[in-house]
């Protein structure tokens, strides 16, 4: 007997079609989604994921920490906990945040199921259909489904080497005000932005915090990668600069320990925190006690810093390999960011190339990336791609970029053959459109695909 059969009717969508909420209609099929489904195949070198390399975490450490949880707090680990998280966990968060210079109060912290839940909870608490969210362009592709699920109107502000252009942000806010639209919050990943790979400069950080205060708008500072700095001076977080008035800080253990523990946190002004707390109560009741105690036990000493340093070394080498490979294999007219930390490089091809189509070609050569359109809600990003360097080995990165570079070169040559010579390859972004949201399902590769680099 086929074990799958009792559930099989769940696929008969027409039976349930009349029951679906209207907001589920934004979940449409798309070319990009069809293509992304193939990136998971084992023979594909995927630079498309956003995975930390969990193979570097010592199994013996995991066993020791688990044993400590089992012997010391078995009953608590197996029990429900408070919605805002165990006090112990919130104190752990305070210590982790102190490592990057921020001072937080355990009472201002909500422990969540990953940083992603913070994005969801903030939207849930603040967004009515049609409300404006201002985000960077490009923005985190994984935030896009959350924004669209709450039927937000997302306005994207461009970035340069110093991160979000705060002057453009102010112009945008002025324009919105003239149009009688008040944005609810500004979503930003100021440090090692996903997917842009750039970091917001200190003057802009200061100005952004002032803008939020002057206009009384909240900022959601998403900071998953802040501790993964390979070089350069650490910058204060927006939260630290603001002192907790208009900045909601979203943190996570995913990139400094493991995404598998599914623990993140929000630090927010008290009235906002209360709303987030209510939202969390509705959806998850409380974060996992089991993984909270695991995290607390692991972060008790200072050993976690050595592991973060190890990750920094590993990812720095992988980034270097990726940048060298881009330099070597990409044709003239292509450009890319040089991140000082984090997981991603954002590369932009000559403007006649469409990276969604290029992904189709790349997949037939068993290599994948995230097409830039997935990071925009307005049809821009067509010539760009996000490349991840943390989840693949150095050899895979070199080979993957070599394959992509060869395909881009071929297409550039072909274009020149078609048009009769080299041409101006400067970027010309199309005008933003509001009807082209491409809600992207990001496939996750299987665990066994995360391998340790030969070091």
């Amino acid at each position: 007997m086929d074990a799958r059969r009792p559930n099989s009717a769940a696929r008969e969508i027409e039976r349930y079609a009349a029951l679906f909420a209207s907001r589920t209609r934004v979940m449409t099929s798309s070319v990009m989604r069809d293509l992304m489904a193939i990136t998971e195949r084992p023979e594909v070198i995927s630079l498309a994921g956003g995975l930390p390399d969990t193979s570097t975490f010592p199994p013996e450490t995991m066993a020791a920490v688990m044993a400590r949880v089992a012997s010391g707090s078995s009953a608590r680990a197996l029990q429900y906990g408070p919605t805002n998280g165990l006090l112990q966990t919130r104190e752990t968060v305070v210590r982790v945040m102190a490592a990057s210079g921020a001072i937080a109060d355990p009472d201002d912290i909500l422990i969540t199921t990953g940083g992603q839940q913070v994005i969801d909870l903030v939207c849930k608490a603040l967004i009515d259909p049609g409300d404006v969210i201002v985000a960077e362009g490009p923005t985190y592709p994984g935030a896009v489904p959350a924004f669209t699920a709450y039927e937000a109107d997302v306005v994207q502000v461009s970035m340069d080497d110093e991160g979000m252009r705060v002057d453009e942000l102010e112009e945008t806010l002025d324009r919105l005000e003239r149009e009688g639209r008040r944005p609810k919050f500004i979503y930003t990943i100021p440090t090692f932005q996903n997917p842009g790979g750039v970091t917001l400069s200190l003057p802009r950080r200061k100005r952004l915090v002032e803008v939020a205060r002057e206009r009384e708008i909240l900022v959601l500072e998403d900071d998953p990668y802040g501790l993964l700095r390979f070089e350069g001076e650490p910058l204060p977080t927006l939260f630290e600069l603001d002192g907790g008035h208009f900045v909601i800080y979203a943190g996570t253990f995913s990139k400094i320990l493991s995404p598998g523990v599914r623990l993140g946190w929000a630090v927010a002004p008290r009235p906002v925190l209360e709303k987030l707390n209510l939202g969390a109560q509705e959806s998850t009741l409380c974060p996992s006690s089991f993984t909270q105690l695991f995290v607390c036990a692991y972060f008790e000493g200072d050993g976690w810093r050595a592991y973060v340093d190890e990750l920094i070394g590993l990812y720095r080498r992988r980034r270097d390999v990726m940048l060298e490979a881009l330099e070597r294999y990409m044709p003239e007219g292509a450009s890319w960011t040089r991140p000082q930390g984090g997981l991603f490089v954002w590369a932009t091809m000559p403007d006649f190339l469409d990276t969604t189509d290029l992904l189709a070609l790349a997949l037939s050569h068993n290599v994948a990336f995230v097409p830039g359109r997935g990071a925009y809600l307005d049809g821009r990003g067509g010539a760009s791609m996000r490349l991840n360097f943390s989840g693949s080995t150095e050899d895979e990165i070199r080979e993957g970029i070599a394959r992509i570079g060869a395909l881009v070169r071929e297409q550039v040559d072909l274009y020149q053959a078609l048009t009769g010579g080299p041409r101006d390859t400067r970027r010309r972004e199309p005008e933003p459109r509001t009807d082209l949201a491409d809600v992207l399902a990001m496939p996750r590769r299987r665990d066994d695909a995360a391998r340790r680099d030969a070091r």
Partner: protein
Amino acid sequence: MTGRRIAVLKGGRSFERQVSLVSGGRVEDALARAGHDVTGIDVGADLVDRLRAADPEVVFVALHGRDGEDGTVQELLEALGLAYTGPRPAACALSSDKVLAKHLMQDAGIPTPDFLAFGESTFKDLGASGALPQIGDRLHFPVVVKPARGGSALGVRFAATPEEVPGALIAALSYDDRVLVERFVRGRELAVSILGGEALPVVEAIPSAEDFYDFEARYTIGRTRFVCPAGLDHGVAAEAQRLALRVVDLLGLQSCARVDLLLDADGALWVLEANAIPGMTETSLLPQAADAAGLDFDDLITRMLADARDPRSR
């Protein structure tokens, strides 16, 4: 009716993998409801081993796109001596190649929009870019640029001016090494499904007005409305069905197929292409057409299964 051992092939590595997984899942459900012993197989490198393990009496092919619809898998099933649903290898190969199929249709006098075909190597090695001005002279703008093979809207681009042609060619050449540039026929989109040598009622696909020139939107579920049977004069519907039958006779797709046509403003019908393995999702056109003919999904699957042929019996 006694249950048979049936393997349903789905998924695979084609760009239409997602659609195929849905099609295959629905086929599995229908076969299970009919009392068969069903094994679903997501096609990969272990296909032969999994087929041997499942030891099916019949293989139901629910693959779309490369490998599944172009005759590759059918040739393998022939080699293994397994009975399978859908067309034989030659018909699959012919119909999945739009350039070949359109040449055959033109030669047979079946109306299909005029076109030019190019291979990637003809641009690189033979200087075919010199032939690009021909496009305007012969086809007139706007034109549609398509990869020769591959279903759905992947790589299909609209070029309103000569300047847009190179970019459209690059996009289409990302999906196949041969492309066709086709005269754009403005008109109503019709589909005639064929089952067991008979034409089913005509389905019309109506894209929302603002998406008229946005090909991706036109193929995006939820942005197109389907009407079946299409609101057509009896004569036009009958002519569409007659044309579709001529196409399937020409290409060898009599058992099951979907033929896509356009009805232009002058009332002329144009055949765009024929699909050897039509989609079986909840919004696919073959199931809708069958339903309009009084065949529910389970009946449709039973009919398709009954048409499966055993290579050993030929």
